[in-house]
């Protein structure tokens, strides 16, 4: 597949994967490996003092994967900036998946707080990948603020409903000068293929891989979906029409009239 470039860094995979909700670290690692992904997201949370977990990072090979900390749980710009700074202090590269979701039911990103946080983090030298509503005007504002990508949602986080925001994502793709990563809501490899056929530069999935009996096989299926969609986009999809257009010759039939 052709390379994906984000903030000057080259990736051979166009599938980003999340590390949440897997039944075990083993299942998570198997999914990461089979996805072919080179970017994996992680979250930052309080340590459970009475019962500390073993370190997630011991399961993720830093040579193989770029760790992309998210700011999940942030309800406003201030909380998101605080989380991003903590993640950087943990020794990560200064990349951050900016996520500001004040609404607990649909986890929809707050456009105003997301833009505010993006402006601050870009100034502090972060490479900012913002999760955002599929709003073309907001995408422009974020790009102007200096974000490395825009990441419009296909459907609310964890819903597996596919590219419900299709028409708006098409406009974002048409206008963007930074990579467009469709994040959230993709539940099937066909959804990822659809986003890629439309010209998305990459997709991010988590729930669809974690919430299945065989995460490794599903990760492989998504990898193929993404590759199929990308190749179809590069090849150029045929035009849609209302009437039939025969694929076989319309001459030489075994009849005389």
């Amino acid at each position: 597949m052709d390379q994906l470039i984000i903030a000057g860094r080259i990736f051979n995979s166009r599938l980003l994967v999340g590390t949440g909700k897997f039944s075990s670290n083993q299942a998570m690692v198997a999914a990461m490996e089979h996805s072919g992904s080179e970017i994996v997201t992680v979250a930052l949370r309080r340590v459970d003092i009475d019962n500390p977990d073993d370190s997630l990072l011991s399961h993720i090979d830093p040579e193989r994967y770029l760790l992309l900390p998210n700011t999940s749980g942030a309800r406003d710009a201030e909380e998101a900036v605080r989380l991003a700074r903590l993640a950087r202090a943990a020794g990560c590269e200064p990349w951050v998946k900016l996520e500001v979701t004040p609404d607990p039911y649909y986890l929809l990103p707050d456009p105003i707080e997301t833009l505010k946080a993006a402006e601050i983090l870009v100034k502090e030298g972060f490479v900012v990948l913002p999760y955002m509503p599929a709003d073309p005007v907001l995408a422009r504002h974020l790009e102007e603020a200096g974000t490395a990508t825009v990441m419009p949602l296909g459907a609310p986080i964890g819903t597996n409903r596919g590219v419900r925001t299709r028409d708006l994502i098409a406009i974002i793709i048409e206008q963007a000068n930074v990579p467009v990563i469709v994040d959230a809501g993709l539940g099937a490899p066909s959804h990822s293929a659809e986003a890629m056929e439309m010209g998305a530069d990459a997709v991010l999935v988590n729930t669809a891989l974690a919430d299945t009996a065989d995460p490794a096989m599903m990760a492989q299926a998504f990898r193929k979906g993404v590759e199929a969609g990308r190749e179809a986009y590069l090849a150029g999809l045929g035009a849609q029409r209302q009437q039939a257009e025969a694929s076989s010759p319309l001459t030489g039939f075994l009849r005389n009239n």
Partner: protein
Amino acid sequence: MKLIINGKTTEYQDNLTVQQLLQKLKLSPDQVVVELNRQILSPNIHVKTELKSEDTIELVQFVGGG
């Protein structure tokens, strides 16, 4: 000395540095990030940072997330 660690108030008998607190809690400094009264502490100053009563400490780590 009263410390507020991850939102929970805990009483300690002795004076502690951040490094000693992490040792008491059996946490490795590579694994957690320490925020003391909203200031992020870089690991190299854990050893010389003395905690005072009423200090608010956040200990955070990476977990799975999307």
